[in-house]
Protein backbone atom coordinates (compact mmCIF):
# COMPACT_ATOMS: atom_id res chain seq x y z
CA UNK A 1 0.00 0.00 0.00
CA UNK A 2 1.21 3.51 -0.77
CA UNK A 3 2.50 5.02 2.48
CA UNK A 4 1.15 8.55 2.04
CA UNK A 5 -2.37 7.54 1.18
CA UNK A 6 -5.68 6.97 2.89
CA UNK A 7 -8.23 4.23 2.38
CA UNK A 8 -7.75 0.82 0.85
CA UNK A 9 -6.40 -0.08 -2.56
CA UNK A 10 -8.55 -2.23 -4.82
CA UNK A 11 -7.03 -3.93 -7.87
CA UNK A 12 -8.56 -3.84 -11.33
CA UNK A 13 -11.93 -5.65 -11.32
CA UNK A 14 -11.95 -6.19 -7.53
CA UNK A 15 -15.42 -5.75 -6.03
CA UNK A 16 -15.78 -3.13 -3.32
CA UNK A 17 -19.46 -3.80 -2.66
CA UNK A 18 -21.53 -6.57 -4.18
CA UNK A 19 -25.15 -6.43 -5.26
CA UNK A 20 -27.42 -8.34 -2.89
CA UNK A 21 -25.01 -8.24 0.03
CA UNK A 22 -25.82 -6.42 3.23
CA UNK A 23 -23.67 -3.48 4.31
CA UNK A 24 -23.76 -0.48 6.57
CA UNK A 25 -20.98 1.67 5.16
CA UNK A 26 -20.69 4.40 2.59
CA UNK A 27 -17.56 4.73 0.43
CA UNK A 28 -15.69 7.68 -1.02
CA UNK A 29 -13.30 7.28 -3.97
CA UNK A 30 -9.93 8.81 -3.02
CA UNK A 31 -8.12 8.14 -6.29
CA UNK A 32 -8.63 6.13 -9.47
CA UNK A 33 -11.96 5.11 -10.91
CA UNK A 34 -14.71 2.63 -10.02
CA UNK A 35 -17.60 1.29 -12.04
CA UNK A 36 -21.16 0.79 -10.81
CA UNK A 37 -22.86 -2.19 -12.45
CA UNK A 38 -26.15 -3.99 -11.89
CA UNK A 39 -27.12 -7.57 -12.68
CA UNK A 40 -30.11 -7.66 -15.00
CA UNK A 41 -33.01 -10.14 -14.90
CA UNK A 42 -31.38 -12.29 -17.60
CA UNK A 43 -28.09 -12.41 -15.69
CA UNK A 44 -26.20 -9.85 -17.73
CA UNK A 45 -24.35 -6.85 -16.33
CA UNK A 46 -25.72 -3.37 -16.92
CA UNK A 47 -23.24 -0.50 -16.65
CA UNK A 48 -24.68 2.33 -14.53
CA UNK A 49 -21.87 4.81 -13.92
CA UNK A 50 -18.20 5.51 -13.45
CA UNK A 51 -17.20 7.31 -10.24
CA UNK A 52 -13.97 9.20 -9.64
CA UNK A 53 -12.05 10.88 -6.79
CA UNK A 54 -14.41 12.69 -4.42
CA UNK A 55 -17.50 10.72 -5.54
CA UNK A 56 -19.29 8.50 -3.04
CA UNK A 57 -21.40 5.37 -3.24
CA UNK A 58 -23.18 2.94 -0.90
CA UNK A 59 -24.98 5.79 0.86
CA UNK A 60 -28.37 4.08 0.51
CA UNK A 61 -27.26 1.39 2.98
CA UNK A 62 -26.57 4.08 5.57
CA UNK A 63 -30.13 5.34 5.47
CA UNK A 64 -32.09 2.11 4.93
CA UNK A 65 -31.64 -1.51 5.91
CA UNK A 66 -31.70 -3.00 2.43
CA UNK A 67 -29.18 -5.09 0.53
CA UNK A 68 -26.79 -3.38 -1.89
CA UNK A 69 -28.64 -2.44 -5.06
CA UNK A 70 -25.57 -2.60 -7.32
CA UNK A 71 -22.02 -3.88 -7.51
CA UNK A 72 -19.13 -1.43 -7.46
CA UNK A 73 -15.74 -2.59 -8.74
CA UNK A 74 -12.38 -0.98 -9.37
CA UNK A 75 -11.42 0.05 -12.90
CA UNK A 76 -7.64 -0.12 -12.85
CA UNK A 77 -6.21 0.50 -9.39
CA UNK A 78 -8.53 2.55 -7.17
CA UNK A 79 -8.19 3.78 -3.60
CA UNK A 80 -11.44 3.93 -1.65
CA UNK A 81 -12.21 5.06 1.90
CA UNK A 82 -14.95 3.41 3.95
CA UNK A 83 -17.20 5.63 6.06
CA UNK A 84 -18.87 4.03 9.06
CA UNK A 85 -22.62 4.45 9.41
CA UNK A 86 -22.21 5.30 13.11
CA UNK A 87 -19.61 8.01 12.47
CA UNK A 88 -21.69 9.55 9.70
CA UNK A 89 -25.02 9.53 11.55
CA UNK A 90 -23.41 10.84 14.74
CA UNK A 91 -22.03 13.76 12.77
CA UNK A 92 -25.30 14.38 10.88
CA UNK A 93 -27.10 14.55 14.21
CA UNK A 94 -24.74 17.32 15.32
CA UNK A 95 -24.52 18.99 11.91
CA UNK A 96 -27.61 18.33 9.75
CA UNK A 97 -26.10 20.39 6.92
CA UNK A 98 -23.72 17.49 6.21
CA UNK A 99 -26.76 15.56 4.96
CA UNK A 100 -27.43 18.35 2.46
CA UNK A 101 -24.13 17.49 0.81
CA UNK A 102 -25.26 13.89 0.39
CA UNK A 103 -28.78 14.92 -0.68
CA UNK A 104 -27.32 17.09 -3.43
CA UNK A 105 -25.60 14.10 -5.05
CA UNK A 106 -28.55 11.80 -4.45
CA UNK A 107 -30.83 14.38 -6.07
CA UNK A 108 -28.52 14.55 -9.11
CA UNK A 109 -28.67 10.76 -9.37
CA UNK A 110 -32.50 10.76 -9.24
CA UNK A 111 -32.50 13.40 -11.99
CA UNK A 112 -30.23 11.22 -14.15
CA UNK A 113 -32.40 8.20 -13.43
CA UNK A 114 -35.54 10.10 -14.47
CA UNK A 115 -33.82 11.09 -17.72
CA UNK A 116 -32.86 7.44 -18.33
CA UNK A 117 -36.43 6.24 -17.64
CA UNK A 118 -37.85 8.89 -19.97
CA UNK A 119 -35.34 7.87 -22.67
CA UNK A 120 -36.28 4.18 -22.30
CA UNK A 121 -39.97 5.12 -22.32
CA UNK A 122 -39.52 6.95 -25.63
CA UNK A 123 -37.72 3.94 -27.08
CA UNK A 124 -40.56 1.59 -26.18
CA UNK A 125 -43.41 3.81 -27.42
Amino acid sequence: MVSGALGKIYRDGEEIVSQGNTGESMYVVQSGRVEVVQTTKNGGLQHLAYLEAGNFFGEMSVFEKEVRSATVRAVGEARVLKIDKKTLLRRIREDPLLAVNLLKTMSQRIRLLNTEIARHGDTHL
Partner: protein
Amino acid sequence: MGFSSQSSVADSFAGLASSEENEFALKDGSRIAVVGGGPSGSFFAYFLLKMAEAIDLELEVDIFEPRSFQYCGPAGCNHCGGIVSESLVQILSAEGIVLPDTVVQRGVESYVVHMDVGDVSIASPVNEQRIAALYRGNGPREGGDAPLESFDGFLQGMATERGARVVRQLITGVEWPDGRPHLKFADHSDSSYDLVAVAAGVNSRFIDLLDDHPEGFKPPKTTRGYICEFRSTEEEILRVLGSSVHVFLLDIPRFEFAAIIPKGPFATVVMVGDDLDEELVHTFLNDPVVQRAFPTNAVPCVCTCKPLINLGARKRPYGDRVVLVGDSGVTRLYKDGIGAAFRTGKAAATTAVFHGVSRGDFEKHFWPACKSIANDNAVGRIMFATNTVMKNSRLTRRAMLRMAQREQERDGARPHMSSLLWNMFTGSAPYTEMFKGTFHPGFIGNLLVSLGSAFWPRQK
Protein backbone atom coordinates in the same frame (compact mmCIF):
# COMPACT_ATOMS: atom_id res chain seq x y z
CA MET B 1 -30.73 6.86 15.73
CA GLY B 2 -33.63 9.25 15.55
CA PHE B 3 -33.76 12.13 13.13
CA SER B 4 -34.73 14.78 15.63
CA SER B 5 -32.02 16.79 13.88
CA GLN B 6 -34.50 17.48 11.07
CA SER B 7 -36.04 20.14 13.29
CA SER B 8 -32.63 21.82 13.30
CA VAL B 9 -32.66 21.94 9.49
CA ALA B 10 -36.08 23.57 9.58
CA ASP B 11 -34.77 25.90 12.25
CA SER B 12 -31.88 26.87 9.95
CA PHE B 13 -34.18 27.88 7.16
CA ALA B 14 -36.58 29.64 9.55
CA GLY B 15 -33.56 31.66 10.65
CA LEU B 16 -33.14 32.89 7.10
CA ALA B 17 -36.51 34.64 7.11
CA SER B 18 -36.06 36.27 10.49
CA SER B 19 -32.52 37.40 9.70
CA GLU B 20 -33.79 39.87 7.07
CA GLU B 21 -34.51 42.56 9.68
CA ASN B 22 -31.84 41.50 12.15
CA GLU B 23 -29.13 44.17 12.59
CA PHE B 24 -26.70 41.33 13.39
CA ALA B 25 -27.50 39.39 10.19
CA LEU B 26 -24.82 39.21 7.51
CA LYS B 27 -25.84 40.96 4.30
CA ASP B 28 -24.38 41.30 0.81
CA GLY B 29 -21.04 43.04 1.21
CA SER B 30 -20.63 42.18 4.92
CA ARG B 31 -16.97 41.99 5.88
CA ILE B 32 -15.57 39.18 8.03
CA ALA B 33 -12.08 39.08 9.51
CA VAL B 34 -10.62 35.67 10.35
CA VAL B 35 -7.63 36.02 12.65
CA GLY B 36 -5.42 32.98 12.10
CA GLY B 37 -5.11 30.87 8.97
CA GLY B 38 -4.75 27.45 10.61
CA PRO B 39 -7.40 24.70 10.34
CA SER B 40 -10.09 26.42 12.44
CA GLY B 41 -9.74 29.71 10.52
CA SER B 42 -9.69 28.01 7.14
CA PHE B 43 -12.57 25.65 7.94
CA PHE B 44 -14.59 28.64 9.19
CA ALA B 45 -13.84 30.71 6.07
CA TYR B 46 -14.43 27.78 3.70
CA PHE B 47 -17.83 26.83 5.14
CA LEU B 48 -18.88 30.46 5.59
CA LEU B 49 -18.30 31.16 1.90
CA LYS B 50 -19.72 27.83 0.74
CA MET B 51 -22.97 28.31 2.67
CA ALA B 52 -23.19 31.99 1.72
CA GLU B 53 -22.91 31.02 -1.95
CA ALA B 54 -25.72 28.47 -1.50
CA ILE B 55 -28.10 31.27 -0.49
CA ASP B 56 -26.67 33.89 -2.89
CA LEU B 57 -25.07 35.95 -0.14
CA GLU B 58 -21.92 37.82 -1.13
CA LEU B 59 -19.42 38.16 1.69
CA GLU B 60 -15.93 39.61 1.91
CA VAL B 61 -13.62 37.40 3.97
CA ASP B 62 -10.07 38.38 5.00
CA ILE B 63 -7.86 35.76 6.66
CA PHE B 64 -5.09 37.39 8.69
CA GLU B 65 -2.15 35.00 8.75
CA PRO B 66 1.42 36.29 8.90
CA ARG B 67 2.97 32.87 8.17
CA SER B 68 3.36 31.31 4.76
CA PHE B 69 2.86 27.56 4.84
CA GLN B 70 5.26 27.23 1.91
CA TYR B 71 8.21 27.73 4.26
CA CYS B 72 9.89 24.87 6.10
CA GLY B 73 10.39 25.07 9.86
CA PRO B 74 8.81 27.50 12.34
CA ALA B 75 8.12 30.20 9.70
CA GLY B 76 5.43 27.99 8.19
CA CYS B 77 4.49 25.74 11.10
CA ASN B 78 1.58 25.64 13.52
CA HIS B 79 3.33 23.51 16.17
CA CYS B 80 1.28 20.35 16.28
CA GLY B 81 1.89 16.58 16.18
CA GLY B 82 0.00 16.41 12.91
CA ILE B 83 -2.59 13.65 13.16
CA VAL B 84 -5.98 13.84 11.48
CA SER B 85 -8.27 11.42 13.32
CA GLU B 86 -10.12 8.52 11.78
CA SER B 87 -13.50 10.19 12.32
CA LEU B 88 -12.37 13.48 10.78
CA VAL B 89 -10.85 11.79 7.72
CA GLN B 90 -14.24 10.13 7.13
CA ILE B 91 -16.28 13.28 7.71
CA LEU B 92 -14.01 15.35 5.46
CA SER B 93 -14.53 12.76 2.72
CA ALA B 94 -18.29 12.92 3.22
CA GLU B 95 -18.00 16.72 2.89
CA GLY B 96 -16.24 16.16 -0.44
CA ILE B 97 -12.80 17.09 0.94
CA VAL B 98 -10.27 14.45 -0.12
CA LEU B 99 -6.80 14.90 1.38
CA PRO B 100 -4.17 14.68 -1.38
CA ASP B 101 -1.33 12.14 -1.16
CA THR B 102 1.17 15.00 -1.11
CA VAL B 103 -0.38 16.28 2.14
CA VAL B 104 -0.74 12.88 3.84
CA GLN B 105 2.80 11.86 4.79
CA ARG B 106 1.71 8.47 6.05
CA GLY B 107 -1.66 6.70 6.17
CA VAL B 108 -1.79 5.06 9.60
CA GLU B 109 -3.14 1.51 9.78
CA SER B 110 -2.27 0.60 13.37
CA TYR B 111 -1.14 1.88 16.75
CA VAL B 112 1.62 0.06 18.62
CA VAL B 113 1.45 0.41 22.40
CA HIS B 114 4.87 0.05 24.02
CA MET B 115 5.29 -0.79 27.69
CA ASP B 116 8.12 -2.22 29.76
CA VAL B 117 6.07 -5.45 30.03
CA GLY B 118 5.73 -5.84 26.26
CA ASP B 119 4.22 -4.35 23.11
CA VAL B 120 0.90 -4.81 21.39
CA SER B 121 -0.08 -3.74 17.90
CA ILE B 122 -3.70 -2.65 17.56
CA ALA B 123 -4.85 -2.72 13.97
CA SER B 124 -7.44 -0.41 12.48
CA PRO B 125 -10.88 -1.99 13.10
CA VAL B 126 -11.63 -1.89 9.35
CA ASN B 127 -8.17 -2.87 8.08
CA GLU B 128 -7.83 0.44 6.25
CA GLN B 129 -5.59 3.46 6.48
CA ARG B 130 -8.01 6.04 7.80
CA ILE B 131 -5.75 8.18 9.99
CA ALA B 132 -3.51 10.77 8.36
CA ALA B 133 -0.04 11.64 9.66
CA LEU B 134 0.89 14.99 8.12
CA TYR B 135 2.70 18.26 8.58
CA ARG B 136 0.71 21.32 9.52
CA GLY B 137 3.39 23.48 7.91
CA ASN B 138 5.77 22.59 5.12
CA GLY B 139 7.76 20.15 7.24
CA PRO B 140 10.84 20.49 9.43
CA ARG B 141 13.40 23.23 8.96
CA GLU B 142 15.77 20.80 7.24
CA GLY B 143 13.11 19.23 5.09
CA GLY B 144 13.45 21.41 2.01
CA ASP B 145 14.23 18.47 -0.28
CA ALA B 146 11.35 16.30 0.94
CA PRO B 147 8.18 16.23 -1.20
CA LEU B 148 5.87 17.77 1.40
CA GLU B 149 2.72 19.82 1.17
CA SER B 150 1.35 21.63 4.17
CA PHE B 151 -2.04 20.57 5.58
CA ASP B 152 -2.74 24.11 6.76
CA GLY B 153 -1.71 25.40 3.33
CA PHE B 154 -4.07 22.91 1.66
CA LEU B 155 -7.01 24.04 3.83
CA GLN B 156 -6.15 27.70 3.31
CA GLY B 157 -6.14 27.01 -0.44
CA MET B 158 -9.69 25.64 -0.16
CA ALA B 159 -10.79 28.85 1.55
CA THR B 160 -9.07 31.11 -0.99
CA GLU B 161 -10.58 29.12 -3.88
CA ARG B 162 -13.97 30.01 -2.38
CA GLY B 163 -13.00 33.68 -2.43
CA ALA B 164 -11.25 34.37 0.89
CA ARG B 165 -8.29 36.76 0.78
CA VAL B 166 -5.14 36.07 2.80
CA VAL B 167 -3.77 39.24 4.40
CA ARG B 168 -0.19 39.23 5.73
CA GLN B 169 -0.63 42.40 7.83
CA LEU B 170 0.14 42.26 11.54
CA ILE B 171 -2.82 43.22 13.74
CA THR B 172 -1.73 45.52 16.57
CA GLY B 173 -5.08 46.33 18.15
CA VAL B 174 -8.85 45.86 18.14
CA GLU B 175 -11.32 48.64 18.97
CA TRP B 176 -15.13 48.60 19.11
CA PRO B 177 -16.12 52.27 18.52
CA ASP B 178 -19.58 51.59 17.04
CA GLY B 179 -20.06 48.07 18.36
CA ARG B 180 -18.21 46.72 15.33
CA PRO B 181 -14.64 45.37 15.42
CA HIS B 182 -12.05 47.77 13.99
CA LEU B 183 -8.72 46.07 13.42
CA LYS B 184 -5.64 48.30 13.69
CA PHE B 185 -2.44 47.52 11.87
CA ALA B 186 1.27 48.18 12.34
CA ASP B 187 1.23 50.89 9.63
CA HIS B 188 -1.39 52.81 11.71
CA SER B 189 -4.20 52.02 9.24
CA ASP B 190 -7.39 50.33 10.39
CA SER B 191 -10.31 48.44 8.93
CA SER B 192 -13.88 47.86 10.10
CA TYR B 193 -15.59 44.45 10.00
CA ASP B 194 -19.04 43.01 10.74
CA LEU B 195 -17.59 39.96 12.45
CA VAL B 196 -14.21 38.87 13.70
CA ALA B 197 -13.59 35.12 13.98
CA VAL B 198 -10.66 34.44 16.29
CA ALA B 199 -8.78 31.34 15.15
CA ALA B 200 -5.37 32.28 16.48
CA GLY B 201 -4.95 29.31 18.85
CA VAL B 202 -3.43 29.57 22.33
CA ASN B 203 0.12 30.31 21.21
CA SER B 204 -0.78 33.74 19.85
CA ARG B 205 -0.96 37.03 21.75
CA PHE B 206 -3.98 38.16 19.72
CA ILE B 207 -6.45 37.21 22.44
CA ASP B 208 -4.87 39.86 24.71
CA LEU B 209 -6.03 42.46 22.17
CA LEU B 210 -9.65 41.58 22.98
CA ASP B 211 -9.30 42.90 26.55
CA ASP B 212 -11.53 45.88 25.70
CA HIS B 213 -14.40 43.65 24.59
CA PRO B 214 -17.27 43.59 27.14
CA GLU B 215 -17.08 39.79 27.33
CA GLY B 216 -13.47 40.03 28.61
CA PHE B 217 -12.10 36.81 27.13
CA LYS B 218 -9.71 35.14 29.55
CA PRO B 219 -7.08 32.65 28.39
CA PRO B 220 -8.05 28.96 28.80
CA LYS B 221 -6.12 26.54 30.99
CA THR B 222 -3.15 25.13 29.09
CA THR B 223 -0.39 22.57 29.37
CA ARG B 224 2.88 22.17 27.47
CA GLY B 225 3.67 19.84 24.64
CA TYR B 226 7.07 18.91 23.28
CA ILE B 227 7.51 18.23 19.59
CA CYS B 228 10.78 17.23 17.96
CA GLU B 229 11.47 16.09 14.41
CA PHE B 230 14.00 13.33 13.70
CA ARG B 231 15.37 12.77 10.23
CA SER B 232 16.12 9.30 8.88
CA THR B 233 15.41 7.72 5.51
CA GLU B 234 12.01 6.74 4.19
CA GLU B 235 13.12 3.08 4.06
CA GLU B 236 14.39 3.04 7.66
CA ILE B 237 11.30 4.80 8.99
CA LEU B 238 9.10 2.31 7.16
CA ARG B 239 11.21 -0.65 8.36
CA VAL B 240 11.16 0.33 12.05
CA LEU B 241 7.94 2.29 12.48
CA GLY B 242 5.93 0.97 9.52
CA SER B 243 2.56 2.64 9.00
CA SER B 244 1.93 2.73 12.74
CA VAL B 245 1.85 5.42 15.36
CA HIS B 246 3.88 4.24 18.36
CA VAL B 247 2.61 5.25 21.79
CA PHE B 248 4.35 4.73 25.11
CA LEU B 249 2.87 3.91 28.51
CA LEU B 250 5.94 4.10 30.74
CA ASP B 251 6.40 4.38 34.45
CA ILE B 252 8.79 7.34 34.32
CA PRO B 253 8.26 9.95 37.07
CA ARG B 254 6.37 13.01 35.73
CA PHE B 255 5.84 11.25 32.37
CA GLU B 256 2.28 11.33 31.02
CA PHE B 257 2.10 10.44 27.34
CA ALA B 258 4.33 10.28 24.28
CA ALA B 259 4.05 9.12 20.69
CA ILE B 260 6.31 8.65 17.68
CA ILE B 261 4.63 9.38 14.35
CA PRO B 262 6.18 8.31 11.02
CA LYS B 263 6.07 10.92 8.25
CA GLY B 264 7.95 10.11 5.06
CA PRO B 265 11.71 10.30 5.93
CA PHE B 266 10.94 11.91 9.31
CA ALA B 267 9.67 10.76 12.69
CA THR B 268 7.82 13.23 14.89
CA VAL B 269 8.20 12.74 18.65
CA VAL B 270 5.32 14.25 20.64
CA MET B 271 5.20 14.44 24.43
CA VAL B 272 2.47 15.96 26.59
CA GLY B 273 2.66 16.86 30.27
CA ASP B 274 2.43 19.66 32.79
CA ASP B 275 5.94 19.22 33.99
CA LEU B 276 7.92 18.73 30.77
CA ASP B 277 11.57 19.74 30.79
CA GLU B 278 14.79 18.77 29.01
CA GLU B 279 15.60 16.14 31.63
CA LEU B 280 12.27 14.35 31.17
CA VAL B 281 12.60 14.44 27.38
CA HIS B 282 16.14 13.04 27.66
CA THR B 283 15.01 10.29 30.07
CA PHE B 284 12.18 9.32 27.71
CA LEU B 285 14.35 9.21 24.57
CA ASN B 286 16.95 7.09 26.35
CA ASP B 287 14.48 4.63 27.86
CA PRO B 288 15.22 1.12 26.53
CA VAL B 289 11.57 0.67 25.49
CA VAL B 290 11.79 3.82 23.35
CA GLN B 291 15.23 2.95 22.00
CA ARG B 292 14.06 -0.38 20.61
CA ALA B 293 11.21 1.34 18.72
CA PHE B 294 13.35 4.13 17.33
CA PRO B 295 15.04 4.17 13.89
CA THR B 296 18.75 3.60 14.54
CA ASN B 297 20.01 6.26 12.14
CA ALA B 298 17.52 8.97 13.15
CA VAL B 299 19.09 12.29 14.02
CA PRO B 300 17.24 15.19 15.62
CA CYS B 301 16.45 18.12 13.32
CA VAL B 302 16.84 21.68 14.47
CA CYS B 303 13.03 21.73 14.60
CA THR B 304 11.91 21.44 18.21
CA CYS B 305 9.11 23.32 19.92
CA LYS B 306 7.16 23.41 23.17
CA PRO B 307 3.72 24.71 22.22
CA LEU B 308 0.90 25.45 24.65
CA ILE B 309 -2.03 23.04 24.44
CA ASN B 310 -5.55 24.11 25.35
CA LEU B 311 -6.88 21.95 28.20
CA GLY B 312 -10.21 23.54 28.82
CA ALA B 313 -13.18 25.32 27.42
CA ARG B 314 -13.81 29.01 27.58
CA LYS B 315 -17.09 29.65 29.33
CA ARG B 316 -18.30 31.90 26.55
CA PRO B 317 -16.21 31.81 23.33
CA TYR B 318 -18.38 34.41 21.62
CA GLY B 319 -19.89 37.85 21.96
CA ASP B 320 -21.57 40.39 19.71
CA ARG B 321 -19.67 40.28 16.39
CA VAL B 322 -16.91 38.04 17.74
CA VAL B 323 -16.54 34.27 17.88
CA LEU B 324 -13.61 32.12 19.00
CA VAL B 325 -13.11 28.88 17.07
CA GLY B 326 -10.73 25.93 17.41
CA ASP B 327 -8.02 26.09 20.08
CA SER B 328 -8.85 29.74 20.82
CA GLY B 329 -12.21 28.63 22.19
CA VAL B 330 -13.01 24.99 22.86
CA THR B 331 -11.03 21.95 21.79
CA ARG B 332 -10.91 18.25 22.60
CA LEU B 333 -8.79 17.17 25.53
CA TYR B 334 -5.31 16.06 24.31
CA LYS B 335 -6.69 14.52 21.07
CA ASP B 336 -8.23 15.44 17.77
CA GLY B 337 -7.67 19.19 18.02
CA ILE B 338 -8.09 19.44 14.24
CA GLY B 339 -11.44 17.65 14.55
CA ALA B 340 -12.55 20.21 17.14
CA ALA B 341 -11.34 23.00 14.82
CA PHE B 342 -13.54 21.53 12.07
CA ARG B 343 -16.61 21.17 14.31
CA THR B 344 -16.41 24.61 15.93
CA GLY B 345 -15.35 26.33 12.68
CA LYS B 346 -18.31 24.92 10.77
CA ALA B 347 -20.76 25.55 13.63
CA ALA B 348 -19.65 29.21 13.84
CA ALA B 349 -19.93 29.61 10.05
CA THR B 350 -23.43 28.05 9.99
CA THR B 351 -24.55 30.38 12.78
CA ALA B 352 -23.15 33.49 11.09
CA VAL B 353 -24.72 32.71 7.70
CA PHE B 354 -28.12 31.35 8.75
CA HIS B 355 -28.81 33.16 12.01
CA GLY B 356 -26.62 36.17 12.71
CA VAL B 357 -23.52 37.31 14.55
CA SER B 358 -24.94 38.50 17.88
CA ARG B 359 -24.01 37.03 21.23
CA GLY B 360 -27.50 35.48 21.39
CA ASP B 361 -27.13 33.88 17.94
CA PHE B 362 -23.83 32.26 18.89
CA GLU B 363 -25.16 31.18 22.26
CA LYS B 364 -28.17 29.48 20.70
CA HIS B 365 -26.57 27.93 17.62
CA PHE B 366 -22.78 27.78 18.11
CA TRP B 367 -22.40 27.08 21.82
CA PRO B 368 -24.17 23.64 21.69
CA ALA B 369 -21.34 22.33 19.47
CA CYS B 370 -18.74 23.69 21.93
CA LYS B 371 -20.67 22.46 24.95
CA SER B 372 -20.84 18.92 23.62
CA ILE B 373 -17.02 18.94 23.28
CA ALA B 374 -16.59 20.47 26.76
CA ASN B 375 -18.94 17.94 28.37
CA ASP B 376 -17.13 15.10 26.63
CA ASN B 377 -13.80 16.48 27.89
CA ALA B 378 -15.07 16.15 31.47
CA VAL B 379 -15.47 12.41 30.89
CA GLY B 380 -12.09 12.41 29.10
CA ARG B 381 -10.42 13.72 32.26
CA ILE B 382 -11.73 10.70 34.18
CA MET B 383 -10.46 8.41 31.42
CA PHE B 384 -6.97 9.92 31.38
CA ALA B 385 -6.78 9.93 35.20
CA THR B 386 -7.67 6.22 35.18
CA ASN B 387 -5.09 5.59 32.47
CA THR B 388 -2.43 7.32 34.58
CA VAL B 389 -3.24 5.10 37.56
CA MET B 390 -3.17 1.96 35.40
CA LYS B 391 0.07 2.80 33.60
CA ASN B 392 1.84 3.45 36.89
CA SER B 393 1.36 -0.11 38.13
CA ARG B 394 3.26 -2.98 36.54
CA LEU B 395 0.38 -5.35 37.34
CA THR B 396 -2.27 -3.27 35.55
CA ARG B 397 0.10 -2.54 32.64
CA ARG B 398 0.55 -6.28 32.19
CA ALA B 399 -3.23 -6.87 32.46
CA MET B 400 -3.97 -4.23 29.78
CA LEU B 401 -1.30 -5.69 27.54
CA ARG B 402 -2.50 -9.29 27.91
CA MET B 403 -6.13 -8.40 27.31
CA ALA B 404 -5.29 -6.43 24.15
CA GLN B 405 -2.87 -9.11 22.93
CA ARG B 406 -5.48 -11.85 23.36
CA GLU B 407 -8.04 -9.81 21.43
CA GLN B 408 -5.62 -9.11 18.59
CA GLU B 409 -4.52 -12.76 18.37
CA ARG B 410 -8.02 -14.28 18.28
CA ASP B 411 -10.15 -13.87 15.19
CA GLY B 412 -13.69 -12.91 16.09
CA ALA B 413 -12.85 -11.89 19.68
CA ARG B 414 -14.74 -8.76 20.71
CA PRO B 415 -12.03 -6.10 20.99
CA HIS B 416 -12.98 -4.44 24.29
CA MET B 417 -9.53 -3.29 25.41
CA SER B 418 -8.24 -2.85 21.83
CA SER B 419 -11.15 -0.55 20.97
CA LEU B 420 -10.65 1.42 24.16
CA LEU B 421 -6.91 1.90 23.53
CA TRP B 422 -7.49 2.60 19.82
CA ASN B 423 -10.08 5.28 20.57
CA MET B 424 -8.06 6.76 23.46
CA PHE B 425 -4.96 7.16 21.31
CA THR B 426 -6.57 8.06 18.01
CA GLY B 427 -9.29 10.32 19.40
CA SER B 428 -11.69 8.67 16.95
CA ALA B 429 -14.67 8.36 19.29
CA PRO B 430 -16.12 10.63 21.97
CA TYR B 431 -14.75 9.98 25.47
CA THR B 432 -18.32 9.38 26.64
CA GLU B 433 -18.65 6.44 24.26
CA MET B 434 -15.33 4.97 25.45
CA PHE B 435 -16.40 5.40 29.07
CA LYS B 436 -19.67 3.55 28.46
CA GLY B 437 -17.69 0.73 26.84
CA THR B 438 -15.83 0.12 30.11
CA PHE B 439 -19.12 -0.85 31.80
CA HIS B 440 -19.75 -3.66 29.31
CA PRO B 441 -19.82 -7.00 31.18
CA GLY B 442 -17.38 -8.42 28.59
CA PHE B 443 -14.89 -5.64 29.28
CA ILE B 444 -15.13 -6.03 33.06
CA GLY B 445 -14.97 -9.84 32.92
CA ASN B 446 -11.98 -9.96 30.59
CA LEU B 447 -10.17 -7.28 32.56
CA LEU B 448 -10.63 -9.26 35.78
CA VAL B 449 -9.34 -12.42 34.10
CA SER B 450 -6.37 -10.47 32.70
CA LEU B 451 -5.66 -8.94 36.11
CA GLY B 452 -5.65 -12.42 37.61
CA SER B 453 -3.31 -13.79 34.96
CA ALA B 454 -1.06 -10.71 35.27
CA PHE B 455 0.27 -12.07 38.59
CA TRP B 456 2.20 -14.65 36.59
CA PRO B 457 4.73 -13.97 33.82
CA ARG B 458 3.50 -15.05 30.40
CA GLN B 459 4.71 -18.43 29.17
CA LYS B 460 6.17 -18.26 25.68
